[in-house]
């Protein structure tokens, strides 16, 4: 389903990638190889707080890249990493990637080099990208208890049923209980709300999209 048209790159990234093939300010295959390897390796590693392994600093120190200058190195680094992040997140196929790279007028060796390194690291990069994001705590278990209240000090003798429900939430490996009481009617209400949520998810999944642009406004409203 992913189409070529949604693999969009900003103009800055595009111009930087084009400049890689330019004869005057071009980058040789060796330098290109070094940069590509650093980019892919750094993207494929799970980030840690250990600053000593900062690859970019090492790039700066790297002698064969010295003639490019730090600014050019950082530009190329950012553009290439943005390109690779976009390619990995869109799950682009290798043929699409090749055709995209051809539009930048790269030499075939550079294209092959990038494809090789990318394909090797693609799954790792995608796994690392998946690690980012925020997630609220997840519901893992439910314990319930049905009590029968005979008497309270505030209301006197009340004979009523009360559910005590304990939701166990897991947040980054840590378990947290969330306890609350509810009457039978409130519990039914909660269950019905959850069922409504399930139904609306199913409805969204089965919604036929309006295909004209005017239709887009309507589907916006439905959402």
């Amino acid at each position, binding site marked *: 389903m992913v189409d070529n*048209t949604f693999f969009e790159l900003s103009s800055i*990234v595009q111009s930087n990638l084009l400049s890689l093939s330019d004869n005057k300010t071009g980058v040789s295959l060796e330098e290109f190889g070094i940069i590509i390897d650093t980019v892919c390796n750094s993207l494929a590693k799970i980030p840690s707080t250990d600053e000593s392994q*900062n690859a970019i600093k090492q790039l700066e120190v790297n002698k064969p890249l010295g003639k490019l200058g730090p600014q050019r190195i950082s530009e190329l680094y*950012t553009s290439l990493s943005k390109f690779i992040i976009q390619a990995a997140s869109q799950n682009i196929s290798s043929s699409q990637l090749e055709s995209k790279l051809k539009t930048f007028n790269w030499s075939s060796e550079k294209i092959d080099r990038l494809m090789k390194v990318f394909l090797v690291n693609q799954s790792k990069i995608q796994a690392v990208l998946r690690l980012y994001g925020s997630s609220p705590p997840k519901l893992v278990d439910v314990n319930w208890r049905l009590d029968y209240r005979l008497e309270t000090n505030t209301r006197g003798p009340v004979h009523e049923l009360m559910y005590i429900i304990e939701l166990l939430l897991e947040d980054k490996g840590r378990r947290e209980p969330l306890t609350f009481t509810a009457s039978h009617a409130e519990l039914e209400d909660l269950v019905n709300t959850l069922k409504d949520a399930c139904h609306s998810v199913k409805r969204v*999944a089965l919604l036929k999209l309006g*295909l004209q642009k005017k239709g887009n406004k309507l589907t916006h409203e439905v959402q």
Partner: protein
Amino acid sequence: MEETDGIIIETLRKIGCDIEDDVTSIAHFTTEIVIEGVVKCLVSIHPDLQLNHRMPPNLPARYKLCMEIAKACKEVAGYKGDLGYETFLHGSQAEIRNVFAILIQKLPKVNEQPIADSIMDPFACTMGKIQNDILRQLHQPWLPYFSNPSSGNSFPFHSTDLSKAVNTSGRHHLLKLSSVPTIQLIPSLIETHISELAADKYQYKFPIKKGSNFKREQEFLSPAQSSRFSLVRLLNFTDIDKKKKKPQPPPKPSHLGGAPKTEGLPTIEEQCQKLNIVMENLERDLQLRQEELADATEEVANLKCIIQCKETEQDALRNELDRQEKLHALLPDAPAHLHRMKSLLESNKEKIAALEEQWSKIKKPLDDEYQRCLQLQENSIAEKFKAELENTVLSLRQVVKEIRTKEDAIEKLQTHIESMPSSVLTRTFYTQRILSIVANVKKQNEEMHRVLEDVKSVQREINSIQGKVERTFTVTDEIIFRVAKSDEAARRIYKFLISLQTDCSDIQRLVKESGNLSREIKDLEEQAETELRRNIVPKLRQLQIDLEQIRQENRIMEERVNSGGKL
């Protein structure tokens, strides 16, 4: 010309080209729009074509693309005529119009177009992806939490603002990039990329005219860009490189100062303080200006409201003015107009009267019919009810009569029963006796049957034993007769056997006869009993006595007759 342009633009929009609303004729088409439109037409005619519909930024790639497009046009669409890369890049309006006209003619029919739409529309594509994901997740079976492979995300999406680094001088750039902590590197890259994409699109929406205006517009855009994305910046970027200002230590009073300070420091400190003061002043100015701006916008809004009110008043007044003018125009010829209007009025009144008459004419019969039907209906219902009522009343009376008669009968019978003597010989007594008699009869019947069966079985036994005896006798008779011819003892045995046989058969006969005789005795005894019951003897005596009397009377009569005859 304008119509064809409109049609071309409309069809291009339908295919999915992003053409602005301002663009109304081919004169306004830029090369990007032209290439995008042509490529999209070609792709929809021939989906196998792989052509990039965005223009690559460098010239050789552009030429390549245009050559490919030209080739594809000639092959696929059958464009006859000169077509080269120059038509798309620098072509005249007429040529571009021709190309589009021919391509649009070749476009497939309407039902095939929506497929192209769904591919080209980014919103629909994203929605499609979301739907596929939701469907896939809905069809996944539930797994307990501990077997779930992908636990939650570990890293929060914090990013730093890398774009600051872009504008600074080259030396600090790489340091900034490497100083970004690795956990924030990828998010920062993603954020900058997306903001660059958005900036591109924002720029693209302004029609970039070739020439000297380009630089000015870009400069104009960058402050707008910064203001547009300033809020985004605040939301997305977590600035970690703002160093906290350490609170300045209070300045030591000079007379308490210890070691002599160097001369360079106070000046730097003074400069800092001056700059701080300047900055505070500037901030105050900024706040004042912002307040003024808010006030000004409020005033603008108020004035707009007032303007709207005034406009509505003006419209009303204008209408009034028109009316007055018309009246004024009518004035010179006033009496004629008056007369005409009066006649108009009268004719209208007459018309109204006529219409009312017609209406009443039509209305009356319908009304009458309506009333009639209502009444009919009411009557029919009323009659039904009446009939039902009468039926029920009659049946009620009958039932009451029956009840009375039956009650009378009950009373009579009760008195009758009471009057009857109470005897022991009640019905129950008789029924019980009958029942007991019946039971007795049944028992006796059964006994008789039992006895009969016993007799039969005994008789069967007798017969069978008799048969057995005869058979054994014949068998032994034969055997012994055979042996008796030779043996003396056997002859004696034979004789004994025969005597035994004859004696036994005599005994049998006698027993039978005795049995018969006893039966006869019983019968005769029964007969004697019945005769005795008849109690004949006194009757016989009586008969004898009567016979004697009759004989005597007969003798007497005979003597009389004889004596009478002799005389």
